[in-house]
């Protein structure tokens, strides 16, 4: 049985009502599953301890988060990315962030200690948090902390990041770690925050050749995405032979996402998730830990993550979505609430230079593999 980790305290990780990174996204997703008749059984984690956080973040950074969290004043907080428009200060932010880290850690423990295969953490995926800097809605790097826990127990980790933004924090924190391969698929940093994730960022020291980046052209559609996904991931996993997959399953590469420019549809997400589950069976004896991540179109993110939930449970996918769910959230969605789980086809206007985009992505994946495999053999 797959395990789903969630705690109502996750809802406290909220930067305010107007902020994009809204806990409502998970509420809407859970409500969708319940409205479809699924009883979502969740396991409640403990929040991570201060000591857990210090495995990745420095003491002076954590102290600043704690002070702000308790309503104190930190004059230089902006130097640490705190109190900025992306990462506003809110009361209890330290504890709220530790809850999300605790969930990811709990997922890691379930896999190592209980022999669980498929684990879904219903939150987190805070891949931008750097050692000493909050960035892109991320305060503590739950992923890096959970990955370190796994490698500390002898499981080598392949981290797959399908969020539309580069997984810069995870990559940077684990840049020289030979026990961790990171693979990030994202819209090219030339166009999108955080600006990094080029193919020449291959890792350093013992980790050289194990940090892989596939920067994609704006307006990349599912067909091209899946082509490079298939080009890169199995080859990398075959080489690295990880003990477990950790997946940041951001939903912001969807065409309706307001923060970025990739054009994936829900059917593409279904294909991506099916592939990842297949690769987990093939390479890691089925062991895979999913977290959520970005995803700023409520209606798209809720459907993408409901899909993920259904697929890891091997449940049938519904066609139509319940009216009760649609009407409950209609005020929140921009535009008509979706009538079906999958997007209409086509879901968006035609992309004029589709062929050129696919060609460039293909070349990027090819050059990446050439450069990385230099360190593999």
């Amino acid at each position, binding site marked *: 049985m797959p395990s789903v980790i969630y705690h109502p305290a996750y809802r406290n990780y909220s930067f305010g009502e107007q902020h994009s990174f809204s806990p409502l996204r998970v509420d809407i997703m859970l409500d969708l599953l319940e409205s479809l008749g699924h009883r979502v059984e969740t396991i409640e984690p403990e929040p991570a301890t201060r000591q857990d956080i210090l495995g990745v973040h420095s003491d002076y950074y954590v102290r600043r988060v704690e002070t702000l969290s308790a309503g104190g004043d930190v004059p230089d907080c902006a130097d640490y990315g705190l109190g900025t428009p992306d990462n506003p200060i809110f009361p209890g932010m330290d504890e709220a962030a530790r809850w999300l880290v605790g969930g990811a850690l709990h997922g890691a423990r379930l896999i190592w200690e209980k022999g669980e295969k498929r684990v879904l953490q219903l939150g987190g995926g805070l891949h931008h948090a750097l050692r000493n800097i909050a960035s892109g809605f991320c305060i503590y790097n739950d992923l890096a902390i959970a990955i370190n826990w796994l490698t500390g127990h002898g499981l080598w980790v392949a981290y797959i990041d399908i969020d539309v933004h580069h997984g810069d924090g995870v990559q940077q924190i684990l840049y020289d770690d030979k026990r961790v391969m990171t693979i990030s698929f994202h819209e090219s940093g030339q166009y999108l*925050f955080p*600006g990094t994730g080029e193919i020449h960022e291959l890792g350093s020291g013992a980790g050289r050749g194990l940090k892989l980046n596939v920067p994609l052209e704006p307006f990349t559609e599912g067909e091209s995405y899946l082509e490079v996904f298939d080009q890169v991931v199995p080859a990398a996993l075959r080489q690295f032979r990880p003990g477990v997959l950790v997946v940041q399953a951001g939903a912001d590469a969807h065409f309706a996402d307001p923060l970025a420019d990739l054009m994936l549809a829900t059917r593409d997400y279904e294909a991506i998730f099916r592939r990842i589950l297949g690769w987990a069976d093939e390479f890691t004896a089925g062991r895979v830990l999913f977290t959520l991540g970005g995803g700023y179109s409520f209606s798209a993110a809720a459907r993408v993550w409901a899909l993920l939930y259904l697929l890891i449970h091997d449940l049938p996918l519904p066609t139509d979505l319940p009216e009760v769910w649609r009407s409950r959230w209609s005020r929140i969605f921009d535009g008509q609430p979706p009538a079906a789980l999958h997007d209409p086809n086509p879901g968006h206007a035609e*992309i004029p230079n589709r062929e050129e985009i696919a060609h460039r992505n293909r070349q990027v994946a090819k050059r990446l593999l050439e450069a990385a495999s230099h360190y593999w053999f």
Partner: protein
Amino acid sequence: MLVRDIMSSPAVSIPPAMTLEDAYRMMQQKGIRHLPVLDEGRLVGVITDRDLRLATSTFVRSPLSLQGRVSEVMCGEPMTAEAGDPVEDVAFRMRERKIGCLPVMDDGQLIGIVTGVDLLDALLRMTGVNKPSGRLEVRLPDHPGELARLTSFLSHRNLNVHSILTYPEGRDSTRTVLRIGSIETRALANDLRRADFEVLWPPEKPCPR
């Protein structure tokens, strides 16, 4: 940004009587390519790894032995910079004279060195590209007040602007490149378009049907 903000200081220096072999070894050890030459505290020259290689190469008519002296090969009376010089002036001078480094002087004393690589680092810092950020590019008509219109638009939003660079594009327009320390640059691009700015980058996303 001034030279003192980007120079390497203190500079590694050598005496003119040092052998070419020792000078080369020094460069290898420190991982540098340029050495100011000091004679009793006075700057008398600069020597580069290229000077050393060429002086000892069989390409030249009478190559020096490795026991030759630095004073025989160095470029004397080198051009220098002051710690308070603006970075762009120094870049301009180095480009004009096609040289790779300038010793930095203060009151006749060598206090540092600035190289082409330091200028590249300065470019990275000036553009803010070394911090998590998103890039925006706006085309402005080349009229007085246009840049002010853009900056005042930005100042009304709570934004972390890492850098604004402006350069001319043809006769009638300028391009302004902004690096914003935010993941929310798409919303900003849309608002700029709504306020009649021509946003070139990021491109506009085709609307969902």
